[in-house]
């Protein structure tokens, strides 16, 4: 492909990402209503979780349904450390967000060592089983205070500032998760994960240390999920086992990634951006917590029927096919003796 033609889409993509970042940055400035910014915070939490989940499941092909373990671990890390160490309820509490990520990554080691010995359906079932074991532990262990939950210190800042602080910290964690996902995608590590997705045994035979790569990827994907779990605990102010370790979290995050496009960088982001506000809106509107599940089910069916690979890959394919058709049509219309001008849309091409 000629360099100019290759550079143009790359520039467009970079521009789109920059515009997206600006929009997200300006959101709480434009929409000051606390109800709206609360939806904003939750949407960012799920966007981060979906991106992080995809950086393991999307690239390796291992559909994990146990990332709520990492979310809950992050939440309990924030709640227990801040309570036991008497943290002042202010911005210093956010210092515990990375700790939530680190503890979640440590939690991923025994979890991964057990679950990653299996593949495909067995792996999915084992992740669900481990999740319920951990939830049960949260209910029954002494230090998690069982079903009475843990109270988290309430922030001291004012009502208008309340959501914005959480919003921007979560946005930072989202940027971090995206950076990790993008770095993995272009790295040797990412190539090995994709090879594992296509044929794990073959990858082993070509020198890929598959167990190490899978476990590392599992741990890395746990970090941002644990971080947003910690933010969630601080934001909500009180956590209970059934909400910190919520099976619906796993289903939702996986659905978001499938909806947007598994294994792509922007797909899970888009999935969460569409689905989470819908869920929040429906919950607020109908005050019945489960209405969104019906809508989720319907949307999931629609995506499976219309674009089974998710929105981003399907659209990308259609755009590419359309571009090829236009190019082919133009070549047919040209004098065969004249070499085709590949990049007619660029200023250079237009001046010819």
């Amino acid at each position, binding site marked *: 492909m000629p360099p100019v033609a290759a550079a143009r889409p790359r520039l467009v993509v970079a521009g789109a990402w920059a515009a997206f970042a600006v929009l997200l940055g300006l959101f709480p400035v434009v929409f000051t209503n606390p109800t709206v910014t609360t939806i904003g915070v939750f949407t960012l939490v799920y966007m981060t979780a979906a991106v992080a989940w995809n950086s393991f499941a999307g690239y390796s092909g291992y559909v994990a349904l146990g990332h709520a373990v990492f979310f809950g671990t992050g939440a309990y890390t924030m709640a227990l450390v801040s309570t036991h160490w008497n943290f002042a309820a202010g911005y210093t509490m956010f210092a515990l967000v990375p700790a939530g990520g680190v503890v979640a990554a440590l939690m991923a080691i025994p979890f991964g060592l057990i679950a990653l010995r299996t593949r495909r359906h067995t792996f999915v079932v084992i992740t669900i089983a481990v999740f319920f074991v951990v939830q049960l532990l949260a209910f029954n262990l002494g230090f998690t205070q069982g079903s009475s939950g843990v109270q988290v210190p309430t922030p001291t800042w004012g009502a208008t500032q309340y959501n914005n602080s959480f919003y921007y910290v979560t946005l930072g964690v989202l940027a971090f998760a995206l950076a990790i996902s993008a770095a993995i995608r272009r790295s*040797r590590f990412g190539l*090995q994960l994709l090879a594992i997705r296509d044929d794990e045994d073959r990858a082993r035979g070509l020198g890929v240390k598959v167990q190490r790569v899978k476990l*590392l990827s599992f741990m*890395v994907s746990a970090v941002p999920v644990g971080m947003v779990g910690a933010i969630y605990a601080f934001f909500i102010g009180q956590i209970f086992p059934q909400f910190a370790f919520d099976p619906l979290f796993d289903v939702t995050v996986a659905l978001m990634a499938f909806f947007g496009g598994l294994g792509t960088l922007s797909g899970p982001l888009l999935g969460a951006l569409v689905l989470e506000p819908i869920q929040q809106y429906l919950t607020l509107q109908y005050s019945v917590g489960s209405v969104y599940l019906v809508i989720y089910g319907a949307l999931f069916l629609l995506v499976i029927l219309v674009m089974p690979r998710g929105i981003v890959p399907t659209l990308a394919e259609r755009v590419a096919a359309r571009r090829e058709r236009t190019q082919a049509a133009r070549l047919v219309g040209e004098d065969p003796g004249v070499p085709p001008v590949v990049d007619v849309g660029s200023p250079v091409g237009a001046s010819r």
Partner: protein
Amino acid sequence: MSALLEVRGISKSFGGLQALQDCSLTVEDGSITALIGPNGSGKTTLFNIITGYVTPDSGTVTVAGADVTGARPDQIFARGLGRTFQLTRIFGRLTVLENMLVATQRKEGWLRSVLRPAASELEQRRAYELLDFVGLTRLASARAGTLSYGQRKLLELAYVLVADPAVILLDEPAGGVNPTLINQIRDRITELNGQGKTFLVIEHNMEFVMSLSHQVTCMHQGTPIITGPPEVVQSDHRVLDAYLGGADEEEEDDVAVG
């Protein structure tokens, strides 16, 4: 010549089935050794044991004098022993070039592997050279899943070569491939052998085997029954019996070795 790959007294059973029984084999450095035998004689099981996919019940496998029995496939590959599969196994959703880069060997920590790009310029150049060697350069950016069966065989050979293995195990390289591509595969193997690569080849195409190999081993019911130069093995009655189940009619003999 010295032995580069040695298999000594390998036995393996799957439940009640004795797949290999006291199987020994020597592959000399710089040779092309063929492994023939009827279906179910244990050839692929032996390949799987040599390359670490299956653990033997007893016996040893040594590569250049080092015992690799029971080592993992990635460890055996790192020791310079690459293989292809009977039914080609490529990474269908990756591009042809990405397939080539999977096998690139690099000693680096996990953090560097996450932070560094998938391939350096040097590694990419090497990948392109090998794609050129098997005639797949123009398909470098195509999805590997779109390649024809013969092209997949060539890609599999090429990406094994990326890591520059000393011994290459080929499981039916000519199986299901059209005659033109068979010649191309044969030429590539001969050329690589001329550069010093050692081959162990499983193949049913007798013309291919006999024209290519220095040494042929015929297996029957999990045990090698004869090892020798192609012309000797070709006319040995035990080989004919193995293929035809003890038949002694001449017209059937022709089918076996023709």
